């Protein structure tokens, strides 16, 4: 579709951009102490754009800006996820103590940039666009990770992040170049067209390209072996940003992986496709499965050892990436549905967990397990809510997490006995994960004892936590609307149009 016509489907992103510009100017007017007000502006912008998102028709499926972007429900779904999480993040960054005595204006501006980048990520169908989007997200997240300049951990983490990010995007870029060399085009559909009838000699090049690109994507979703930055950055970055990184870019990354691999490396190029592109001659399912297994197992095992809750959550997020990867090899509609559903559930429970960390940090100034000791008695409400999140992360009914896992395992099992081993490893992993998640609960309730007077966190935080906890429970009991939404979002366009 032509650039001008495309605009009509591009409003959400445009609104973000406008907000961006407005916030930049507005930010000049505020003093350091008042610069948090910038947040409200960006919030307003986000809300508007997500409203627009919500009214956007999901029946339309097309490409925008001369085949730069895809406009389809799939993208829409992830855009919504991104928007929601961002709203939460902005709200929580307004209520954390970490940003005391720092100017937060740029913080919100950069978050907006990130949002834009991710929205492009989930819909880009041109290698150039892919690269640009990823870079946009990366660069702004580098800065956000290092936002607390005066805190050593923060700056260090951002340094690691930037170098690691640049490196892996370099790898990806090289991979892309190979792909370009093989096919002479940057449009993923055309690439697939070429690949479908390419000679067998090209296999090796395709393999390399695939692997290099996987490095780039894997780094975004922090899959083993491209996860090494995760714990440090998660621990070092300001908690709201950590929470954000653990959800939004991950979602975008998954969207990208799904779109890219399903388009480029499968036979029909649609999400409905059932087998990987034979030309690549890769045991894709096995590779992906193994990646998934390694990722979740390593994440879980290492998480057991952590003393810092934030860091533990970092590893747990790796593990969850692993769970979601389980559904990739199946190449089935169920698999992708499961991932999308899980993403939604994961968004709530993970954000929630991090928010509780923020609450704890606001109260005790620390974020280790020790700081959680007896917390359930000091702040019963928070304690209970945190337990809910933990159970959900373990995947116990009746919580959203269970439903997510249920769909994932269902997808794996559906693929037939060939993949039962994967499911078994998956469930055993969730048993392992019980150990460290329950450690939090244990610290909060079983250790320490009854307090006389109990307190609540700030109103805003309380509201946020409840807004996350309630759906975490409700979706565990009745999730039909969500799953329907997901299923409807799963229409995907082939290059037919």
């Amino acid at each position, binding site marked *: 579709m032509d650039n001008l016509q495309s605009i009509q489907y591009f409003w959400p992103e445009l609104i973000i951009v406008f907000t961006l510009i407005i916030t930049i100017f507005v930010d000049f007017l505020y003093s350091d102490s008042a610069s948090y007000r910038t947040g409200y502006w960006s919030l307003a912008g986000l809300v508007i754009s997500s409203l627009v998102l919500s009214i956007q028709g999901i029946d339309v499926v097309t490409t*925008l*800006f001369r085949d*730069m972007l895809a406009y389809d429900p799939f993208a829409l779904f992830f855009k919504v996820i991104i928007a929601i999480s961002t709203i939460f993040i902005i709200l929580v960054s307004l209520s954390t103590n970490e940003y005391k005595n720092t100017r937060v204006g740029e913080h919100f501006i*950069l978050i907006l940039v990130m949002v834009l980048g991710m929205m492009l990520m989930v819909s880009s169908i041109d290698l150039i666009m892919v690269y*640009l989007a990823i870079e946009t997200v990366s660069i702004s997240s580098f*800065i956000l990770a290092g936002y607390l300049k005066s805190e050593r951990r923060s700056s260090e983490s951002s340094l690691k992040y930037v170098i690691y990010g640049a490196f892996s995007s370099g790898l990806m870029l090289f991979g892309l170049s190979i792909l370009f*060399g*093989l096919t*002479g085009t940057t449009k993923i559909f055309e690439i697939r067209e*070429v690949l479908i009838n390419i000679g067998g000699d090209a296999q090796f090049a395709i393999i390399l390209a695939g692997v290099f690109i996987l490095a780039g994507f894997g780094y975004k979703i922090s899959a083993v072996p491209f996860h090494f930055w995760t714990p440090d950055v998660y621990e070092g970055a300001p908690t709201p940003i950590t929470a954000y990184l653990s959800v939004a870019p991950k979602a975008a990354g998954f969207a990208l992986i799904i779109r890219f691999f399903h388009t480029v490396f499968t036979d029909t190029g649609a999400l409905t496709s059932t087998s990987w592109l034979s030309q690549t001659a890769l045991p894709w399912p096995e590779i992906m499965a193994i990646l998934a297994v390694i990722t979740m197992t390593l994440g879980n095992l290492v998480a057991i050892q952590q003393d810092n809750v934030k860091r533990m959550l970092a590893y747990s997020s790796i593990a969850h990436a692993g769970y979601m990867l389980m559904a990739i090899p199946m190449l089935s509609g169920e698999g992708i549905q499961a991932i999308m559903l899980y993403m939604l559930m994961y968004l709530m429970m993970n954000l929630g967990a991090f928010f509780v960390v923020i609450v704890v940090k606001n109260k005790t100034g620390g974020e280790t397990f020790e700081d959680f000791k007896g917390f359930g008695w000091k702040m019963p409400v928070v304690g209970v809510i945190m337990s809910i999140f933990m159970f959900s992360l373990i995947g116990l009914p009746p919580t959203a997490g269970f439903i997510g896992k249920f769909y994932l395992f269902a997808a794996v099992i559906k693929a037939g006995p060939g993949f039962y081993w994967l499911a078994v490893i998956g469930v055993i992993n969730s048993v392992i994960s019980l150990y460290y998640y329950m450690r939090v609960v244990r610290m909060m309730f079983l250790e320490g004892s009854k307090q006389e007077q109990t307190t609540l966190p700030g109103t805003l935080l309380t509201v946020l936590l409840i807004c996350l906890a309630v759906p975490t429970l409700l979706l565990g009991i009745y999730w039909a609307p969500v799953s329907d939404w997901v299923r409807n979002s799963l229409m995907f366009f082939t290059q037919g149009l």
Partner: protein
Amino acid sequence: MTTIIFWIFVLFTVVSAFKVVHSHNLIYAALSLLLTLFGVTALYVFLWADFLAGVQIVVYIGGILILLLFGIMLTHKITSIQITQLNMQRGVAGASALGILIILLWMIFRTPWFTMTSSEPLGTVREIGILLMSDYLLPFEVASVLLLAALIGAAMLSRKTE
């Protein structure tokens, strides 16, 4: 004749690139990076990419490299430049690098690349300009936003807080 020049440039590029990663002195490393970039530029020219060659000169050498040098200057007193800047995991690093190289070479020579003969154009600037304003409008704009973000971020980071 041109072939010889080509090979000279290739050699020049590779050697200086090698210096980049090997010289014990950051300044030298930076300078050899400069040479490498020049070499690459030359190769661009060989590849009929005049516009890119220009951009390479302007942005890379004129921008990035200067940035790097500034960085070095800002973060080291002149006296302390000599300190060695190598770390110790060369062994494994070298090995894996070599491995990757071999794999790559193997790939390069056994892959049927997508090729199509074509005559040398008069210049790419115009076409690229048109493309940027038509097909690649969105990336162009996004890039601008990105640069803006980078600008703000960099400014924010290097702003003195106290």
